[in-house]
C-alpha cells in the first residue's frame, strides 16, 4: 500500500502548512509549490496522483493558466481548484479548464477528502465508486485506488490475484481484500492492458504471476493463495500460445 502523491499550489504559507498537515494526517504525501513555475517544475520531474490548485497566486490567476497549460500538454493528472474566489467570472474561466472539482475556502475537511476521491474517480471515469462505499475501488493502469478510513491509498495492480465478473461490473480479488470496480470486463482489460493478466474464462481474468498450478484436464487453475479458478476450453489455446512454458 502506497500513499497518494499530491501537489499543492498555494501562495499563503500559513494556509499551505495547515492544509498539508491536515492531508498528511490523512495518509497523503504533499509537495508544496509557492508559485506556478515551481509547480510546473515539480510536475515535470515527479508523478502526482492529484494536484490541488489555488487560483489567485500573488494576486494573479496563475492557477487557471497553469491548469490550461496542463490540459494543453496532455498531462493526465487530475486537478482541482481550492480557492476563495466565488465570483462568477473567475468561476466561468476556471470551468473552461475542466477541473474535476471546484472547492471554496474555508474548506470543509470532510469535503476536501471527499473531493480528492471524486477527482480520482472522474479522472478514471469510475464515478460513485470509492466515494459511495469502501467496498469499491478505482482502477488505473498502474494502481488500484482503495479507501482507507477517510482517505485514499493505492496498491500496485500486481497485487491483484484475479478478476471476476460481478453482474455489470468486476470484482478484484487481492491479498488485502475484494473490491468492486465500476467497469465492465472489456473496459477493465483495456484499462489494465497488462500482459500479466490473462483471460481464462468468460468471467475470469487471472494474474499469471499468481498461478501455482494448472490442471488442463480438469480445467482448473490453482493460485498461490489456494483459490481455484475455472479454465474454459475456449481460452485454453490462446493461453498456451501466449505462454511458451506450457508447450
Amino acid at each position, binding site marked *: 500500500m502506497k500513499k497518494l502523491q499530491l501537489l499543492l499550489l498555494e501562495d499563503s504559507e500559513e494556509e499551505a502548512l495547515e492544509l498539508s498537515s491536515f492531508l498528511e494526517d490523512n495518509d497523503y504525501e504533499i509537495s508544496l509549490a509557492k508559485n506556478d513555475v515551481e509547480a510546473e517544475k515539480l510536475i515535470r520531474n515527479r508523478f502526482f496522483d492529484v494536484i490541488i490548485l489555488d487560483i489567485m497566486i500573488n494576486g494573479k490567476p496563475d492557477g487557471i493558466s497553469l491548469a490550461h497549460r496542463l490540459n494543453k500538454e496532455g498531462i493526465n493528472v487530475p486537478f482541482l481548484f481550492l480557492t476563495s474566489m*466565488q465570483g*462568477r467570472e473567475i468561476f466561468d474561466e476556471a*470551468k473552461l479548464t475542466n477541473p474535476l472539482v471546484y472547492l471554496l475556502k474555508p474548506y470543509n475537511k*470532510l*469535503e476536501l477528502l471527499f473531493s480528492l476521491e471524486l477527482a480520482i474517480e472522474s479522472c478514471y471515469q469510475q464515478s*460513485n465508486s470509492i466515494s*459511495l462505499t469502501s467496498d469499491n475501488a478505482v482502477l488505473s493502469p498502474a494502481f488500484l485506488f482503495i479507501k482507507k478510513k477517510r482517505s485514499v491509498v493505492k496498491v500496485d495492480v500486481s497485487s491483484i490475484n484475479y478478476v471476476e465478473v460481478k453482474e455489470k461490473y468486476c470484482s478484484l480479488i487481492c491479498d488485502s481484500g475484494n473490491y468492486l470496480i465500476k467497469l465492465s470486463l472489456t473496459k477493465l482489460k483495456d484499462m489494465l492492458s497488462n500482459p500479466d493478466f490473462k483471460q481464462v474464462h468468460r468471467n475470469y481474468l487471472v494474474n499469471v504471476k499468481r498461478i501455482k498450478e494448472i490442471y488442463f484436464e480438469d480445467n482448473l487453475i490453482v493460485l498461490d493463495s489456494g483459490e481455484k479458478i475455472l479454465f474454459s476450453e475456449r481460452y485454453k489455446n490462446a493461453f498456451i500460445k501466449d505462454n511458451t512454458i506450457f508447450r
Partner: protein
Amino acid sequence: MFQTGLPEKNKTFIGRGNSICEKYKNKAFCKALDFYKSKEYDSCYAYSAKVLLQVKSKEELDYVKFMQAYSAYKKGLYKKTLQNLNLIADNKDYTLEKQILRGNIYLKLKKYDESIFFYQKALDEKPETLRKKNIYHNLGINFLQKKDFFKANEYFNKELDLIQAIDTAALISAKMDLANVYYNQYLDDKAIPLFKEAYDLSKFYSDIRLKQNSARNMAVVEKNRKNYQKSIEYYMEYGNWKDSIWNRDKIWELTEKDKQLAVAQKQQEIVLQEEELKRQALVQKSLVVGASGLLVFLGFLGYFYRELKSKNKFITQQKEELNVANKTKDYLFSVVSHDLRSPINTIKRQHEKLKLQLKNKEYDAVSETTNNAIALTESTSHLLNNVLHWSLEQNNQLSFKAEEYPLKPLVEQAVYNFEEIAEAKNIALTTNLEATILVKADKESLKIVLRNLLDNALKYTGENGKIEVKTYKDSEEFSTIEIKDTGFGISEEKLAKIKELEDLSIDKINRSEGVGLGMLLCQTLIKKNNGKLLIDSELNVGTTIRILLPNASA
C-alpha cells in the same frame, strides 16, 4: 390649239371591246378593258402587256395592241405607240384610228409633213363629222405652223363649216385660229372682225383661257391699229383674266401651301404627341420609381417600427427585471440592517465585556464570553454567506449543475461543520445514513440548504437536546434527508408562512413578519433541485424537516 377628242370612235371602240370580252371571257383582257374605260392608262398599259402574252386570237391581239398603243400615247410614250400601231395588222377597223393617232403624234413631235400625210390618209377613210372637224383643225394647225397660210385658211374654213353653232368653245378657237391666219397674212380687214367676233363670243363663255386669249388678240390688234386706248383696255382685261388665272393658280398654290402647312402642322402635332408620349413615359417611369421608393420607405418605416416595438418590449421586460432586482436589493438592505446590526453590536458588547473581565482578572468568565463571541461570529458569518448566496442566486450567478452524488458523504460533510457547536451546546448530534443512496443534485446548493437547516435546528434546540440526521430511500423516485430535533418547535402561524414561501416571489415578502432569509433560500434552492421541503413541527416537542431529492437514474 389642237383637238384630240375621239368620242364617237370611243363608243364604237369600247363596244367592240365589250363584245370581245364577252366572247372570249378572258379575265385579264376584261380587266385591261376596264382600266381603259376608266381612263387609268398606267394600269391599262401594264395590264395590256400581260394580256399580250396570254391571248391568241387575232381579234383580241389587235384590240389589246391598240389599247396599249393608246395608253402609251396618253402617257407620252410616242415611240412605243408608233411601234404598237405598226404591229397591228391592216385591219380596216383600226385604219382610221391608226392614221389619226399617227397624225397626232407627229404633230406633237412637230414633224408637220408626216402629220399632214397621215391626217390626209385618215380623211381618205371617210371619218364621221366630229373627227373630220378635228382632222381639219389639226391640219390647219399643221399648215399654220408651216406658214402655209393659204392651206391653213382653207382647212380652218372647212372646220368652221363643220362646227355647229352650239359648240361655242370650238367655234371661238376656230374663229381665233382663222383670224390668226388672216392676221399673219396681213389681211386685217378679214382678221379683225373675226378677232372681235371671237372676243365677243368668249365674253359669254366661261373658259377663262379663251377669254384671255381673245382679249390679248384684241389688245395686239388694237395696238397695231395704233388704237392704244382700246389696246390698254384689252390688255387690262387680258391682265385681269391672267390675274384670275394666276389667282386660281395662286389659290391652288395657296391650298397646296395650306396643305403643306397642314401637313407640317400635323407633323408638328405628331412630334408634339411623341414628346407627350415621351413625357408620359418619363412620368410613368418616375412614378414607378417614386412608388418603389415609397414602398422601400414604408418597408423601412415598418422595420423601424417593429424594431422600436421590440425594443420597447425589451425595455419593459428589463424594467420588470430591474424592479425585482431593486426589491431584492431593498430586501437585502433590510436583512443587513435588521439581522446584521444586532449581532455585530452584541459582539462589540462581548468584547467590551471581555476587556472588563480581563481588567478585573475574571478568567473563568473570559472563557464563556469568548465562546459566546465565537458563536455569534459564526452565526453572523453564516448570515453573510446566506446573503451572498441569495444575491448570487437572484442574479443567476450561482452556478448550478445537477450531477449524481452519493448522499452519505454530502450529509456527513454538512454535519461535520456543526459537530463542535453541538458539543458546545451539549446537543447530541447523531447521524444514521444509508450508504448506497445516489441522488441527482447540485452539490453547492444542497450544501447551502443543509447548512441552513442544521443551523436552524441547533439554534432552536436547547441544551441537552437531540438532533438526528437520517437519510433513506423513499421510493424509486426520491430519497429523503431527515433532520429531526427536539427543539422549541415552530408555531402554526409561522409554519404556514414558511410554507407560503414555496410559491412566493421576493417582492411579496413582508420582512416585518420575521421569516428569515435562510428559509427562503432553502425553499428556492430545493425547488431548483427538483426536490421538496417538508416541515412538521409541534411547539415544545420539536421539528422534523425532510428534504426530498430525486434519485440518480442509475
